[in-house]
């Protein structure tokens, strides 16, 4: 018999607020975290000058000043979200169980800001001026590394790097580790901080981003007929997962149970989803099967919903294929309408949204939903949060490379 796995803490650093509570409040209020890029001067020649930046983040609340230069921003966000999650779970790693505590925290891109800065230094001042801590400050697995050093977690330590599915894969893989007994506790999720000139120029060159520079807060509009691309976001989303037994033994407050995980590949195209929704359909079915659950049991889907023309159309088609008539009874929303697309952190924060939706019985809306698209004709909880009892919530993540992940959370019932 496999072990049950529960969620006991969540931590969020998002473009809406650098804390979980603040982010949730803004999500329920339907606020947009999108604006003009402030950290860099982007000239008129940039086709995209908007993003969802994290505002008001003070790393010194979590990290000593002397250590900041050894951690690019995505590591700082991951540390902050982890501290919040551990605080909520009222959990600290005890030395006697340290090797039973896993850290699975990935990033889609890693330390873009410092890579760009150091490359400038290389060109202007030469190789002898590159910081000794540069490499450890930018490599993708260092969020997981730093978290283990700070918390004392000595169990499995890995960092998925699966583009926009990273956070969901981290949580799903941690779930399976605990389920099969390789760990009792996991700190799991994703982190991203890649809103830089080079990254923006790169995503813009793919025509993946919204160019609605004149109205940033309207730019991320998943499932709306006038959607024209995603908006880059940043931040971190971390969950504390525990075996049910471990959580009960220490008298933890259980937020919900993690019951299903699907993961697969499109084997189709480096960036485009397959036209018939094949990968998305199979990954949702795989998660349902893993949860031993009928489609009709799902109340809410936090969609991948990027606001690109193709994703939202094909995700809708896939949901219909998996859920049949129930597709119209489900509540679906894309919180990317408010937070932008957090790339490698998206799966982490969106899993946290599912947990909170179950806890509060409230579904955050899809904002900027104004013009119906005949190909997107489901209930996307437009513009206003909705009170609805949520027993089961699913979250989808689809990454470049055709890598997909799906998680299912369920209210904890003994």
């Amino acid at each position: 018999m496999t072990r049950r796995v529960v969620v006991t803490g969540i931590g969020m650093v998002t473009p809406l607020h650098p804390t979980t509570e603040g982010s949730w409040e803004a999500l329920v209020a339907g606020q947009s975290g999108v604006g003009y890029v402030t950290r860099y001067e982007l000239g008129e020649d940039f086709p995209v000058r908007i993003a969802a930046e994290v505002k008001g983040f003070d790393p010194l609340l979590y990290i000593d000043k002397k250590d900041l230069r050894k951690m690019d921003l995505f590591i700082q966000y991951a540390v902050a979200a982890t501290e919040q999650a551990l605080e909520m779970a009222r959990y600290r790693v005890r030395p006697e169980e340290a090797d039973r505590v896993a850290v699975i925290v990935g990033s889609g891109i890693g330390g873009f800001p410092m890579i760009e800065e150091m490359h400038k230094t290389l060109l202007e001042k030469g190789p002898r001026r590159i910081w000794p801590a540069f490499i450890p400050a930018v490599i993708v697995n260092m969020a997981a590394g730093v978290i283990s050093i700070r918390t004392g977690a000595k169990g499995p330590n890995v960092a998925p790097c699966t583009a926009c599915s990273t956070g969901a894969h981290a949580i799903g893989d941690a779930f399976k580790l605990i389920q099969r007994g390789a760990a009792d506790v996991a700190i799991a999720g994703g982190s991203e901080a890649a809103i830089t000139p080079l990254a923006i120029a790169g995503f813009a060159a793919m025509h993946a981003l919204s160019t609605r520079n004149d109205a940033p807060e309207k730019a991320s509009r998943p499932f709306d007929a006038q959607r024209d691309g995603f908006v880059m976001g940043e931040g971190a989303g971390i969950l504390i997962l525990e075996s049910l037994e471990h959580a009960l033994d220490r008298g933890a407050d259980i937020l919900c149970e993690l019951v299903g995980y699907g993961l697969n590949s499109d084997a189709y195209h480096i960036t485009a989803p397959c036209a018939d929704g094949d990968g998305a359909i199979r990954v949702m079915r795989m998660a349902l099967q893993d949860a031993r659950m009928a489609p009709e049991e799902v109340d809410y889907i936090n969609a991948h919903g990027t606001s690109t023309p193709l994703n939202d159309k094909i995700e809708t088609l896939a949901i219909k294929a998996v859920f049949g008539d129930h597709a119209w009874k489900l509540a679906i929303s894309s919180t990317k309408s408010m937070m932008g697309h957090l790339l490698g952190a998206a799966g982490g924060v969106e899993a946290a949204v599912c947990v909170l939706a179950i806890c509060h019985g409230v579904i955050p809306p899809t904002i900027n939903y104004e013009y119906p698209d005949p190909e997107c004709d489901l209930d996307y909880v437009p513009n206003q949060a909705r009170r609805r009892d949520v027993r089961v919530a699913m979250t989808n993540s689809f990454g470049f490379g055709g890598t997909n992940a799906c998680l299912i959370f369920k209210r904890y019932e003994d």
Partner: protein
Amino acid sequence: MQDHREIEQKVVQIIAEQLDKDPTQIRMESRFIEDLGADSLDVMQIVMNLEEAFGIQISEEDTEKIRTVGDAVQFIAQYMSRSASA
């Protein structure tokens, strides 16, 4: 050319900044790792910052000999007087 006192102050300032310490906590006999809590990457960064601030080059061999704040000051003072007399 800077006198010994000026070099001392500048070195202390650079170290204080890198390790986020109050300059008054830094003495000439303070060892980087044992007394000031630096790690090996910090020491390399400090050496790099000293090179940049004083416009000098410190070889790997010399870096290994610099263990205390005073070692760094002395090295820089000697380097400067050598290059001044050259």
